[in-house]
């Protein structure tokens, strides 16, 4: 199985300096390196793991021609193993993702992630890393507030001000998450506890400890035992996130919702 991910370079900060500059590393950079480490380790364990590897695809949105060239060159310059490059317009983002059977879309842009999630394509946030570190481990963070709620109990979210539409989206997002978790769980099992290049954590921000317990159980039911768990019960997640420095953050689109955003703001 291939899990395809999209990442981006930091296109904004690079001026139009053709050829000479390789694009500065963006949020995705450490992530891609970490993914490559995981891939190497998986292959190192067994040739049969070829089916489990990550396959990284780079998606550029609304890119001008010279930028495209820059991207190719930069990828080569940094030695990134990128299998495919896709370029599309922002309108066609979801279409491109669906047409190419992308399993996971990653972007530092919250709006993109949310709109892709709404369309039923799994998507998660690329966390802005303070520094390029920990490339020998891929860190994934799951936000447990929704995972911990079963489909039925999600109805209770209405009391908190979420609409039916929101709840539908949550359910869809949870399904997407499930597929990803199953695969990550399989990969993780290859490595064992010590020295694993795959590091997973769970964080519930505004749920009670029961929600956290329920989330842990749900993830376990899907085949994944997380390494770390945090139950914040309303504390700001900023400091914890800064310490954790995950590469990918799965928050099921929660962050975009009004009223919830202040609670989740980092």
């Amino acid at each position, binding site marked *: 199985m291939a899990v395809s991910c999209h990442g981006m370079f930091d296109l904004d900060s690079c001026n139009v300096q053709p050829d000479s500059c390789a694009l500065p590393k963006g949020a995705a950079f450490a992530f891609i390196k970490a993914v490559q480490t995981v891939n190497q380790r998986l292959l190192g364990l067994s040739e049969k793991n070829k089916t489990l590897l990550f396959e990284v695809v780079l998606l550029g949105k609304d890119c001008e021609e010279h930028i495209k060239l820059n991207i190719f060159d930069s990828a080569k310059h940094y030695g990134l193993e990128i299998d495919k490059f896709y370029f599309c317009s922002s309108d066609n983002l979801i279409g491109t993702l669906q047409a190419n059977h992308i399993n996971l879309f990653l972007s530092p842009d919250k709006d993109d992630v949310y709109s892709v999630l709404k369309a039923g394509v799994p998507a998660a946030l690329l966390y802005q890393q303070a520094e390029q570190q920990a490339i020998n481990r891929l860190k994934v963070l799951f936000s447990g507030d929704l995972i911990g709620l079963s489909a039925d109990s999600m109805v209770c979210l209405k009391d908190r001000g979420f609409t039916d539409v929101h709840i539908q989206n949550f359910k869809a997002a949870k399904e997407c998450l499930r597929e990803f978790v199953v695969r990550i769980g399989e990969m993780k099992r290859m490595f064992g506890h010590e020295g694993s290049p795959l590091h997973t954590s769970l964080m519930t921000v505004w749920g009670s*400890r029961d929600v956290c317990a329920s989330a842990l159980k749900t993830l376990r039911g899907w085949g994944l035992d997380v390494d*770390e768990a945090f139950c914040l019960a309303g504390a700001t997640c900023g400091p914890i996130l800064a310490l954790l420095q995950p590469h990918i953050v799965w928050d099921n689109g929660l962050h975009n919702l009004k009223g919830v955003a202040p609670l989740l703001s980092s």
Partner: protein
Amino acid sequence: MTLYPGQVMKGQNPMPLTPPPNSNGDSNDSWDENKGFCESVGPTKKPQTEPVRRARKVEGGIFFPKPENAVTIAVSSRVLFRTEKEQKVFEEKGVEEYLNYQALEAVNSQLRELYPESEELFDIVLVTYNHAHVGVRLINTINHHNLFIERFCMTGGSSPIGYLKAWHTNLYLSADAEKVQEALAEGIAAATMFMPEKQVEVSETQLRVAFDGDAVLFSDESERIFKAHGLDKFFEHERENEHTLLEHGPLKGFLEALGKLQKKFYAKGHRLNCPIRTYLVTARSAASSGIRALKTLRAWGLETDEALFLAGAPKGPMLEKIRPHIYFDDQMFHIEGAAERGTIAAHVPYGIAQMYSHRKSTNSAK
């Protein structure tokens, strides 16, 4: 107990009573509540008459005091639960609570009564380097005992010290001396818990915390003189420096945090029956070396409700009388003495005393 708009009532969950006979609501206060309630409490627990679960609902979510505003006490899982000696697994039946958190909750509920909007309450966070797969069982146990712990952090093997800072921890209690030392090195007040085999009764309505002076509230500078040059030199040094303030020690910040909460009670006229009470229990003597300690505290704007100058007498009997919920000392000798008498003691591995192995001596007088 008044309910505040956001509070969620949970069913009455009496704390399980442990076999040892408990006297009801005595003057013994389990101070430990503040400190890591999470840590298993001593044997006696009285059923709580108030089933309230400390939660406040606010549009869209449940929230609890922000860590930076609350007096945050982080405890490790071993302090919270006493596991069976043979197995490290947290089984529901085999778990007792170390700490009697009821006094802590009593303080919190009174604070809420007086200052409903304030976030300056006690908050206990479980910070453990357990792997998250133990997490569900841990949460189940917490639920089973109806402990007021909403926040936790399972680091799955990595050091919890960074997270302690992120939580604005005012005090970290652990059974692991190494972790405690790491925390102290980072400037976080921390102590290693020692539970006595048989605990004296502690009050459930008043939180009592006792501190040693040197190397706990104050730095170990005087301790060094004593260890290096003996008692006479120590007295001389103290006399000469009577007007110089002592440097602050690792737990000064925590006393400060307690003092802040105490002042809130005083402001509303609860001076005499304040549910938090602090004690200084020092081997210094009142007539001479103790003066410097008092002056230093006063200069810092801090005070303890009681100051006991033992002039070298053993601390055990005095502690037994006070019945603090927890007692902090830097010397294992005193910790063991306290534990022998049934006081919950916490060792602060700070300062010169750590270089000297503990020996039972009759003349550890200062």
